[in-house]
């Protein structure tokens, strides 16, 4: 049994032992859980993929004379921001797109540029053009603003993603006879391809299935900088079916994360365009798991062939909200390049970059080994299985009475 405090002392002394979520698998196979739990102090996990519920808030500073953006309209490189705050606070969501983008009117739309791209450009140090219209008040008389802004000159720039880092995800196929364009990518007719989106054995919440280590306040690698777990993510769903190793068989937990955008790097926050679907942001997240006991190591050493997920028909069942899986497959099968669904061999593609996730586990490891990154104690746990917390569908009612 170790404590986070003891591990931090080792980090400061320079004798901490850190391994990546891949390395721990081999170590446990060679030495067994008990030995590895004694020897290893931290396991680094990571993921890099499109995460649509991402965005950033900014305080752009006060103009002279002052303007109140709240209740007005504000755009960054033509992409609309949310202004429903005080005078110069705005929030830009990853999927926001310019008002004149044709969307899917010319189907399938290209969605070449959106909020995710603006965030990427800001982080890359590029200026972006802000245009705003306000209604004017006695204390904030100005009604129009048009100016280039850049990340270093504005006050706060904070990445605040309300749902990232899904604990497992669906495999998407198309059983119809036409091509479909989804957030899981373009899906060829008659199961021409099967797309998945997870770093599998590297992914943070798959290596801490019951959220025993990752909680509110956990310090993380976020977009190349340092961030924190702010809350459980939206749609967090611990009450789902799990395998004997505790790993969910369907999408389970999620994280809401926050961090200073000014420290982040463009390489780890990429604007993306899902053809026929929309714009988004690919986010790189790395989470250290302190090895407090044997159970931590047992969970962290779970490998691709022990992580299972469901194959879902995105031509019908997903859009119609109909439960049902066409097949259960594991990440080792998915990574082999083909899976078998209903007797048919289907080639697979990943939306999540395994190589980038691996790179993040290495970077986070080097930060910890060098003493640049101390672990934090979580201040409150994420809702787990015993909480009864679950994800509900919308109850629609025709009126508010």
């Amino acid at each position, binding site marked *: 049994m170790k404590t986070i405090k003891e591990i931090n002392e080792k980090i400061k002394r320079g004798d901490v032992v850190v391994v990546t979520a891949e390395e721990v698998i081999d170590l446990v196979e060679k030495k067994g859980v008990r030995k590895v739990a004694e020897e290893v102090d931290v396991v680094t996990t990571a993921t*890099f993929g499109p995460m649509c519920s991402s965005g950033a808030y900014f305080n752009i500073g006060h103009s002279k004379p002052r303007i109140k953006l709240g209740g007005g309209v504000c755009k960054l490189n033509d992409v609309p921001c949310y202004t429903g705050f005080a005078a110069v606070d705005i929030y830009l969501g990853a999927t926001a797109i310019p008002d004149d983008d044709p969307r899917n009117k010319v189907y399938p739309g*290209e969605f070449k540029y959106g909020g995710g791209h603006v965030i990427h450009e800001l982080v890359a140090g590029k200026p972006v053009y802000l245009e705003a219209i306000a209604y004017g008040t006695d204390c904030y008389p100005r009604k129009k603003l048009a100016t280039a802004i850049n990340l270093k000159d504005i006050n706060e720039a904070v990445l605040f993603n309300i749902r990232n880092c899904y604990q497992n995800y669906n495999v998407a196929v198309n059983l119809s006879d036409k091509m479909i364009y989804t957030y899981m990518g373009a899906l*060829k007719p008659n199961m021409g391809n099967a797309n998945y989106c997870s770093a599998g054995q590297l992914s943070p919440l798959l290596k801490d299935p019951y959220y025993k280590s990752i909680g509110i306040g956990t310090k993380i690698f976020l977009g190349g900088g340092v961030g924190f777990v702010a809350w459980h993510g939206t749609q967090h769903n611990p009450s789902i079916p799990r395998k004997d190793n505790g790993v969910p068989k369907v999408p389970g937990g999620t994280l809401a994360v926050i961090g200073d955008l000014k420290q982040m790097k463009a390489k780890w926050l990429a604007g993306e365009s899902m053809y026929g679907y929309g714009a988004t942001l690919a986010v790189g997240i790395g989470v250290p798991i302190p090895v407090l006991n044997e159970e931590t190591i047992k969970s962290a050493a779970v490998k691709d062939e022990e992580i299972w997920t469901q194959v879902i028909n995105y031509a019908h069942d997903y859009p119609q909200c109909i439960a049902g899986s066409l097949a259960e497959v594991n990440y080792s099968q998915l990574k082999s390049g083909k899976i078998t669904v209903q007797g048919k061999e289907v080639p*697979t593609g990943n939306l999540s970059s395994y190589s980038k996730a691996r790179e993040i586990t290495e970077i986070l490891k080097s930060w910890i080994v060098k003493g640049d990154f101390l672990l934090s104690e979580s201040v409150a746990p994420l809702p787990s299985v015993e909480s009864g917390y679950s994800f509900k569908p919308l109850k629609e009612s025709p009126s508010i009475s």
Partner: protein
Amino acid sequence: MISRKIVLHFPQVLVDQPIVYKLVKDFDLQFNILKASVTSGQEGLMVLELTGKKENFDKGIEYLKSCAVLIEPLSKDVIRDEEKCTHCGVCVPVCPVDALVVEPQTRKIIFENKKCIACELCVKICPPRAMEVRF
């Protein structure tokens, strides 16, 4: 007289050489540059419409080959922006000719330009839009 559109790839060492000039002077060929990207110290790419007598045309092509210029008939050339590619791999099952494959050890996506038939299926579905068509 024949007229063909061709794509020339110049290795780095040839970029500073007056190769197109030779085609005119020694082989009496007319040229029309459709696209050129020739920067000193880097690989060069040029799309030419080349017109002349069949005999001279063939000699001109032989000359280019002897200079180690890679010649392709003009279709289109798909290239990958290495900075934009995140190596996710969603393009892999979409490519009809296995020009995009996962390298099993690094899990990076290899793009074999030689196999590419420029069908452009990957171009639009690439989330970071790393695949580009060059004419």
